[in-house]
């Protein structure tokens, strides 16, 4: 039995396209709603980030409600940074009760990289334990072993970092996530297809779907900034050069072009099962990328 439209697609041989939106810092949700409407029919599912980069925002679950209300397919991002096991489970029950059944399980960034550096980080669980805990809930008990009244069912995802400069421990963790119950993976941003190919050689024997993370870069400066400041991101020199050589004022256009090229190649060469496009703040350009790459999700 499948629990969501997205899970159904995971079971097919379709090329999957997901993207993500960052909720606002504040209560003005008009832009988020606009992005949801713009994207909901062009992709197979939309992630809502969970205080991305440890910056306090409107909650992920709230964004997912909106997607659901507007007829889209949400993926709830859940990090372990801000909630202990009680709060995580409670939020999952809430999400399930409102039809949100796709969950991306993440450990979460350190608070040190965010805008509330003095906050107490929680990390009661890690991403592997979160996956496992959700599977436990599905078997009818909470993580402490108490019976649940009404049992939820989820479609679970996780992340993986194919371009990590020391990949071996990441692969061990990938395997642990699969064993713990991950059905799909959205990778950290990919900037070099060689590493994706190499990773897929390792990952293909596992019965999970891999969606390559595509981060849209608007300028060489942004690329360098991400290299220096965003946990885990490694933008290749070739991409930085390409952005540097772009015509003045055409940085974003170049970024769209690069992203579209990655998407197209990944799809044509069947490098993995789909893509996850992260436009970090420029959600409006996602349709342009899809068009340039000649792919679209949900309504193909």
């Amino acid at each position, binding site marked *: 039995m499948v629990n969501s439209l997205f899970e159904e697609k995971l079971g097919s041989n379709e090329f999957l396209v997901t993207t993500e939106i960052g909720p606002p810092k504040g209560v003005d949700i008009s832009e988020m709603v606009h992005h949801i409407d713009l994207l909901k029919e062009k992709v197979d599912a939309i992630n809502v980030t969970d205080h991305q980069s440890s910056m306090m925002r409107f909650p992920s679950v709230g964004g997912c409600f909106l997607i659901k209300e507007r007829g889209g397919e949400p993926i709830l991002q859940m990090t372990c*940074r801000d909630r202990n*096991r009680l709060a995580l489970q409670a939020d999952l029950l809430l999400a399930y009760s409102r039809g949100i059944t796709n969950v991306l399980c993440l*450990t*979460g*960034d*350190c608070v*040190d*990289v965010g805008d509330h550096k003095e906050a107490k*980080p929680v*990390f*009661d*669980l*890690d*991403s*592997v*334990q979160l996956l*496992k*805990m959700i599977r436990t809930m599905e078997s009818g008990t909470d*993580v402490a072993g108490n019976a649940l009244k009404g049992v939820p069912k989820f479609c679970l995802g996780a*992340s*993986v*970092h194919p371009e*990590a*400069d*020391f990949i*071996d*421990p*990441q692969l*061990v*963790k990938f*395997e*642990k996530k699969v*064993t*713990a119950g991950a059905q799909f993976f959205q990778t*950290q941003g990919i900037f070099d297809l060689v590493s994706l190919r190499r990773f897929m050689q390792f990952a293909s024997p596992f019965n999970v779907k891999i969606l390559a993370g595509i981060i849209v870069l608007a300028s060489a400066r942004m690329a360098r900034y991400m290299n220096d400041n965003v*946990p*885990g991101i*490694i933008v290749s020199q070739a991409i930085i050069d390409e952005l540097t050589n772009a015509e003045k004022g055409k940085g974003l256009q170049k970024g769209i072009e690069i992203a579209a090229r990655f998407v197209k190649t990944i799809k044509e060469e069947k490098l993995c099962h789909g893509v996850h496009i992260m436009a970090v703040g420029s959600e409006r350009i996602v349709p342009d990328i899809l068009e340039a790459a000649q792919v679209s999700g949900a309504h193909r």
Partner: protein
Amino acid sequence: MIIAQPKPLEETRRMITPYQRVLIVGCGTCMTVCDAGGEHEVSYLRNALQVAQARSGNGTHTFSEYTLKRQCDSEFLNLLADKVGDVDAILSLGCGIGVQAIAEHFPDIPVLPGVNTSFMGMAKEWGVWDERCAACGDCRLEETAGICPITRCTKGILNGPCAGTKNGKCEANKDADCAWVLIYKRLERLGQLDKMRRYYPPRNFRTIPRPKRLVSKVNINTGGDNG
């Protein structure tokens, strides 16, 4: 060893404001080794307080000083008995345990903390100490090749590295090694990578009920009774 740092002078001056005669008490063990509250620091602090008072022109404090071998043992605290008769407050340069030990020993005298107790650590080089144990009550060092993931990984996670590690460093601090990179490499070296492949369930935080008490066993190996 316990590591601490001296409190800012201004904070210490504010703390002693209500008290005229202040006894500054150092600790001869951890606080001496980490340069936070040994005999040297006691006399240095006394001078600094006196100079600051003279400069500001409005102080009325008088200071005395004494350094104990250890502040966390009541045996040593007895040595203070004849020093505290005429003081209004004790400024302890012991760790938080020292401060509390003095407070328990002399219930009628206010005790003030002169240092910020920071962590339990190891000396890396002259004047540099690194945190190595958080006394979590459930030691994982056997699983993690002798490298503590609770203190050395910023997130204290148990199932391997997060995706934030870059160049072998932690996402939270580019000067700190990623604990899980270190753990992986050492497990590999020991031929014990299977330990990393294992699933580790969520931590049992009941192993650290507060407050803790440890009662020494006469002989653990032969199963002797409590002493």
